[in-house]
């Protein structure tokens, strides 16, 4: 073999040294880039906090309209657990007409409320007494912690409920390390022994049965999700893990892991972190989890889809019990705890998506109302706390009635299942608050939000505003002014002739004003509208709070104007509140992550309509319910419950609406078809059949308008049905009862 000359050898060494230097330099640069990536991602993960969206808290006070069972349901909705004895925040005990509960602490917008033990007494379907047990004092008022209903997170679809390491149950922190990375606290990012053990086990089994990855490695993998499991990725992962350990303490890494690890899938949204997983699976905060629940979450780390407790309960349970045994063997559980925990069922809440992002249509409204005021980055990264107006009871009732009502109508009218779509709104009368919102029959799906975006012709829902415009002129019109329900033809600017018809295709002749409204007669309404002029009618809609522009055409009198259900609720809430208009809002307050108040959305009321015409109109709208097109409501409502409302039917029966109210709630329901084909339901046949049982179950208070000082009642025809009128003007005229169409339609 020829030997190399010394010169060649030296050159080779120099070349080798140079190559080595370049390689080392390249490696250093690569490591520095990797290092920067790791640190950026780590810092980013710690600081990107989605906004948390809360429902309105339940106010608890003597006189509160909840009986013992209803209150218990509220507690369970918030994830409180019934126990034989109280065990700290989140637990309650039930007595004969009594509940004792330890209320969770909560930082409200206007101050922090500490955890307290309360003793509640119930009587006559109400809360009778609220006692603070420790202070031995009866309380006038206390709030429960509000329900977390969603987060506003970046569009990548990640969500978090952040936890700090010292807030995490010790069993979880220790158990996780035990199961996933026994030597976590000792290694430098990699665990060679674990790798060796795993390699051996895999070789023996002939396939991958064990992983030797440390928690640090898993964290890196979670940070930089890639589907390839190639050697180069593995190599990168190893380096990154070591770098991570170099920069951050074990506690910081563990805390990040607790908040990053993938633990489930909620439709299109990934569930990351134990805080969120605790809500998602068990509907309660991490601090309240029981040993078997903690064990289940730890069990899920290995494969959240494979061990999905909702889809693969047996597998999940098997692995959970294995984890419980590991806990016991490491002395994290006593023998009794192990026995008890193993006996417990999985305990996973609900079908899918329990606990978080339950009310997408409402949260959508919240996002829209915020969007103008906060940049997207603030909304999704600053951990803002958003306190909304949502009433979970009202929301669930609205959902339940829509979901039950639609199939029932489809069946009754021989429609194919799934033909009808729907939207609904429940709002408070005086407070301008949206209490419940549903955007479609698939209530869990964040799709097309019909409550906000399905603009459909309002049809007869427009008529009350025509009649209101008339009642604004008491020298010309009162509730019994005779109107002519006779054919009419109008020539439109484009030369076409508009000849509306009544729904029943009949002509009713002369009738009192209120009856034309109660029976929703088109011809009388159009004639009245023409007498008043379309601009007077448009003014009524503006006064009632519309933000859209009512079209300046006579077709407005019959509702040829497209509005979304929420806009309709806005209009009708002004009528319900005696002419005081309040913009409907979904948000009350916004606070920063640590609880400092940021913004308030105060109650803004304006009186836009005088009291007496509104009072008279409301009287007529009660006639709609008793003698008019909505009379079937009293097949469902108690006869003594006073409500006012209007059916809304459109051309060719495409849309079915009902808008109405009692003393404290306005409820609007729309039914129709997405393909805009006729639904073939009038307002009474469709929407009213959902509205009425909903109003009954919401326990809406009886409509009780305060009679204005300048309104009097005149005795009615034959001494019945006293009719209100504005003082100082001629009292209602009663032609002979026989000469007028009967006021009571037998």
């Amino acid at each position, binding site marked *: 073999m020829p030997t190399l000359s010394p010169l060649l050898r030296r050159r080779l060494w120099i070349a080798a040294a140079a190559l080595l230097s370049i390689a080392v330099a390249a490696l250093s640069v690569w490591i520095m880039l990797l290092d920067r990536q790791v640190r950026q991602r780590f810092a980013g993960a710690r600081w990107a906090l989605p906004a948390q969206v809360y429902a*309105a808290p339940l*106010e608890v*006070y*003597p*006189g*509160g309209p909840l009986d013992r069972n209803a209150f218990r349901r509220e507690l369970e909705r918030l994830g409180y657990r019934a126990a034989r004895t109280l065990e700290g925040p989140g637990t309650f005990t039930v007595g004969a007409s009594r509940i004792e509960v330890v209320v969770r602490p909560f930082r409200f*917008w*206007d101050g922090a409320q500490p955890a307290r033990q309360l003793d509640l007494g119930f009587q006559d379907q109400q809360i009778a007494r609220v006692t603070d047990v420790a202070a031995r004092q009866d309380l*006038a*008022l206390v709030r429960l912690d509000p329900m977390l209903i969603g987060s506003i997170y970046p569009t990548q679809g990640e969500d978090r409920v952040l936890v700090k390491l010292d807030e995490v149950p010790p069993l979880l922190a220790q158990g996780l390390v035990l199961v996933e990375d026994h030597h976590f606290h000792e290694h430098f990012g990699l665990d060679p022994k674990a790798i060796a053990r795993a390699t051996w086990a895999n070789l023996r089994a002939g396939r991958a049965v064990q992983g030797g990855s440390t928690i640090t490695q898993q964290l890196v993998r979670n940070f930089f999700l890639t589907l390839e499991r190639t050697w180069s990725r593995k190599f990168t992962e190893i380096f990154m893990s070591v770098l991570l350990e170099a920069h951050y303490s074990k506690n910081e890494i563990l805390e990040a892991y607790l908040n990053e690890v993938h633990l489930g899938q909620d439709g299109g949204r990934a569930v990351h972190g134990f805080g969120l997983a605790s809500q998602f699976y068990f509907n309660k905060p991490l601090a309240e989890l029981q040993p078997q629940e903690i064990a289940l979450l730890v069990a899920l780390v290995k494969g959240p889809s494979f061990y999905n407790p909702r889809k693969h309960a047996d597998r999940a349970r098997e692995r959970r019990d294995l984890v419980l045994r590991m806990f016991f063997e490491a002395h994290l559980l006593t023998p009794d705890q192990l026995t008890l925990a193993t006996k417990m069922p999985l305990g996973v809440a609900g079908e899918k998506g329990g606990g978080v992002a339950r009310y997408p249509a409402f949260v959508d409204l919240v996002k829209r109302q915020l969007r103008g005021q906060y940049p997207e980055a603030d909304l999704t990264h600053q951990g803002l706390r958003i306190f909304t107006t949502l009433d979970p009871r009202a929301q669930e009732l609205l959902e339940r009635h829509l979901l039950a009502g639609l199939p029932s109508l489809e069946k009754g009218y021989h429609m194919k299942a799934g033909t009808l779509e729907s939207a609904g709104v429940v709002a*408070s*009368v*005086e*407070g301008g*608050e949206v209490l419940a919102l549903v955007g479609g029959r698939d209530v869990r799906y964040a799709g097309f939000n019909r409550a906000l975006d399905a603009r459909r012709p309002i049809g007869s829902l427009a008529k009350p505003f025509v009649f209101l415009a008339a009642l*604004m*002129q*008491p*020298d010309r019109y009162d509730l019994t002014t005779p109107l002519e329900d006779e054919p009419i033809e109008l020539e439109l600017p484009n030369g076409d002739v508009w000849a509306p018809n009544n729904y029943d295709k009949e002509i009713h002749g002369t009738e009192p004003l209120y009856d034309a409204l109660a029976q929703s007669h088109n011809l009388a309404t159009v004639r009245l509208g023409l007498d008043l002029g379309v601009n007077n009618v448009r003014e009524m809609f503006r*006064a009632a709070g519309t933000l859209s522009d009512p079209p300046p055409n006579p077709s407005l009198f019959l509702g040829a104007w497209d509005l979304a259900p929420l806009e309709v609720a806005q209009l009708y809430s002004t009528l319900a509140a*005696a002419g*005081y208009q309040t913009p409907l809002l979904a948000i*009350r*307050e916004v606070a920063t992550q640590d609880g400092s108040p940021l913004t*308030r959305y*105060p*109650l*803004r*009321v*304006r*009186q836009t*309509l*005088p*009291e*007496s*015409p509104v009072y008279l109109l409301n009287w007529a709208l009660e006639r709609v319910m008793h003698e008019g097109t909505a009379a079937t409501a009293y097949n469902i409502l108690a006869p003594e419950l006073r409500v006012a409302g209007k059916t809304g039917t459109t051309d060719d029966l495409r849309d079915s609406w009902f808008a109405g109210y009692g*003393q*404290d709630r306005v409820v609007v329901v729309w039914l129709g078809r997405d393909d805009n084909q006729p639904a073939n339901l009038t307002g009474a046949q469709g929407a009213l059949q959902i509205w009425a049982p909903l109003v009954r179950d919401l326990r809406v208070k009886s409509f009780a308008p*305060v*009679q*204005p*000082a*300048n309104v009097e009642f005149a005795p009615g025809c034959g001494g019945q049905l006293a009719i209100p009128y*504005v*003082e*100082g003007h001629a009292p209602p005229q009663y032609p002979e009862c026989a000469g007028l169409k009967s006021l009571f339609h037998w």
Partner: protein
Amino acid sequence: MRPRSIAPILPLAAAMLLAACGPLPPRESPAPPQRPSSAPPRPAPAGGWPRTPAEASGPAVLALLDQAAAQPAAQAEATLERALRIEPRNPFVWQALAGVRLQQGMADDAETAAQKSTQLAGGNPWVESGNWRAIAAARRARGDEPGAQEAEQRASVLQEQLGQ
């Protein structure tokens, strides 16, 4: 020239005399309504008119009213809105809200809240007189001196009736 007949002006004279005897009933207008001062006071309910919040409110709302009275305007507003969620038609709460709005310099909102309180009070002169005083303050803050004086007059008339 023959003197013109005074006959045509007789009806006018009669009308003027009548006008001098008592005010005409008001015409409806979209402006916030004012109770005609010629209208008789509405009859009190069976137990008499509630004079103070304590006579018309539940303990929860009373506790919130007390709390609000001790808070700066920004917080009092939130507390009173909380009270309105529990008893939305309590005229005393709306009146207290009018007071807070005055403190916040929101004269229009103060007047509306006072108006709303009157609407819900259903004729209760104890509540109405306080509301007219609040309305007077709101109008004065807006620079509407004649309006303020009119409101003050309404308040005094009611206060006289109550023997205050």
